[in-house]
């Protein structure tokens, strides 16, 4: 069950000031985003430290994907401050791995999984790869990251013929191939069956711990990852609350955030169910 966490809290105890700041991978201070003239969320303050596993939760259409796009520098803030890896968002995107919210590859897509992973390595470079030493290093790194996610047996098949879980593993490998310091995942468990949800979330957790990558993961359902989360960002009602899951996913905090009575129930297996949360108004939907 939950492994005791020692990472940021204990280590940072002895360090102060500058060094502690350096360990922050993403920080938002009183940030707001407008899309089409309408404020999606505002007054959002949060910080993600090195190697932390953070989930972004909240009802549909509340701006979870928008938060990730802002962090990637694809959407400007309308107020407040946002720093990613110590710079403006988008500056260091080569050190950020991104997995967008998506449907599966079309079954007729005739390109191999290993090619898709390779595109994550140097797909943004102009020109054609020549068989040089750099290309060999790239191929080695691709092989290494494919075995890290356990995709060796199907990485050479056309990706359209891989199952949803296999595709998701390959795409995680693509996001990891440049050894990012931050992994930004938009609903990676969506559209997977229960078995694959468990194995892909186990993979993300082990990558987060073994590679010391900070993970910021948008989730619809917190339960598959609840045991290993360091922090939760709960977005609702145009604002956000951040903290350890046991403090944030509580009846009191969510009632305060929504402004209407919310209950949080816990079943025998320890799964959380949030009851009474109103969906965002219909014009609030994704995109």
């Amino acid at each position, binding site marked *: 069950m939950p492994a005791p966490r020692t990472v940021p809290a204990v280590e940072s105890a002895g360090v102060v000031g500058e060094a502690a700041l350096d360990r922050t991978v993403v920080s938002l201070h009183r940030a707001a985003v407008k899309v089409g003239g309408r404020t999606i969320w505002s007054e959002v303050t949060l910080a993600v430290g090195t190697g932390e596993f953070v989930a972004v939760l909240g009802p549909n259409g509340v701006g979870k994907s928008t938060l990730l796009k802002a962090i*990637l520098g*694809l959407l400007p803030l309308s107020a407040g401050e946002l720093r990613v890896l110590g710079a403006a968002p988008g500056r260091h*995107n*080569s050190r*950020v791995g*991104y*997995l*967008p919210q*998506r*449907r*599966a*590859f*079309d079954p*007729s*897509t*005739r*390109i*191999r999984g290993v*090619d*898709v992973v390779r*595109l*994550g390595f*140097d*797909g*943004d*470079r*102009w*020109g*054609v*790869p020549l068989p040089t030493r750099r290309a060999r290093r790239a191929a080695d790194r691709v092989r290494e990251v494919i075995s890290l996610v356990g995709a060796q047996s199907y990485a050479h*098949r*056309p*990706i*359209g013929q891989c199952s949803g879980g296999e595709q998701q593993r390959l795409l995680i490998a*693509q*996001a990891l191939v440049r050894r990012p310091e931050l992994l930004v995942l938009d609903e990676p468990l969506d559209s997977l069956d229960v078995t694959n949800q468990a194995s892909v979330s186990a993979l993300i957790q082990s990558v987060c711990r073994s590679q010391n990558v900070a993970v910021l993961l948008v989730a619809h359902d917190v339960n598959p990852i609840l045991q290993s989360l360091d922090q939760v960002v709960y977005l609702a009602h145009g604002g956000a609350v951040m903290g350890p899951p046991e403090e944030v996913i509580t009846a009191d905090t969510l009632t305060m955030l929504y402004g209407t009575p919310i209950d949080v129930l816990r079943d025998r297996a320890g799964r959380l169910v949030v009851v009474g949360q109103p969906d965002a108004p219909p014009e609030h939907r994704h*995109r």
Partner: protein
Amino acid sequence: MTGLTWNLADDIRQVLSFHFMVNALRAGTIVAIVAGAIGYFMVLRRQSFAGHTLAVIGFPGAAGATWLGINAGFGYFGFCIAGALIIGALPGSARPDAGLGGYGEESAVIGTVQAFALACGFLFVSLYKGFLSGINSLLFGTITGVTDDQVIVLLVAGACCLVALAALGRPLLFASVDPGVARARGVPVRLVNAAFLVLLGVAAAGTSQVTGSLLVFALLVAPAATASRLTARPALGLTLSIAVALLVTWAGETIAFFSPYPIGFWVTTLAFGCYLAATAYRLTADRLGRSAFRLVRSPA
């Protein structure tokens, strides 16, 4: 024209003794390389319909140029490139957020443009009286029609096209397969998409001059579709696509020389044959692969 001797060296000498055949083979070679390469990306991006429309847009260009007494080649290139820029600029035709594994077809907009282009071409043909035999070669290709000037224009356009494709290479593949991540990685996806449409226009214009506007797919789609049935490796697929395009062009032009039937028919038929063979290969390979997989799986 003399007949087939079934002696390979003699036959080739016979083909090459005619200047129009030398020009046809030169033009065919340039066009096949460009169409095979660009076609590979077009099939991967599922933009075949856009490719077809660009070829059809070339028809009024060529007809208009002939009517005005200009080299038809300029008409093809001018109209196809302009058409590519227009299609690229139309809303809904370039969607950076489109799904994985390629783009949806921009069908409605493109279909409308295509019908209008065909109508304009027909108008220019009627304005240029006495041109009625020419309409066949504009639409379905001719083996005798390629002039020395046209070969030079094709060579320059083809070289520019290949250099640009090589430079775009990886970002184009990235933006085609996975536009969302490519954009986050700093690939200018919209620009890459627009640039590719222009390259597609150049390829379609060039191919039209050998196969005619309506049969460009013989070189633009069929070799690429054949290659993608045979392999899922990008580099190998690109090479195979060019190889198949060259093969069907050379063979089609040679057969057309010895037979009374038009070149467009032969090139298209050979390309279709290659596609059928590759599809059959893929189906059997997949079936064998599946049963092998079952054999491996079943004892476990």
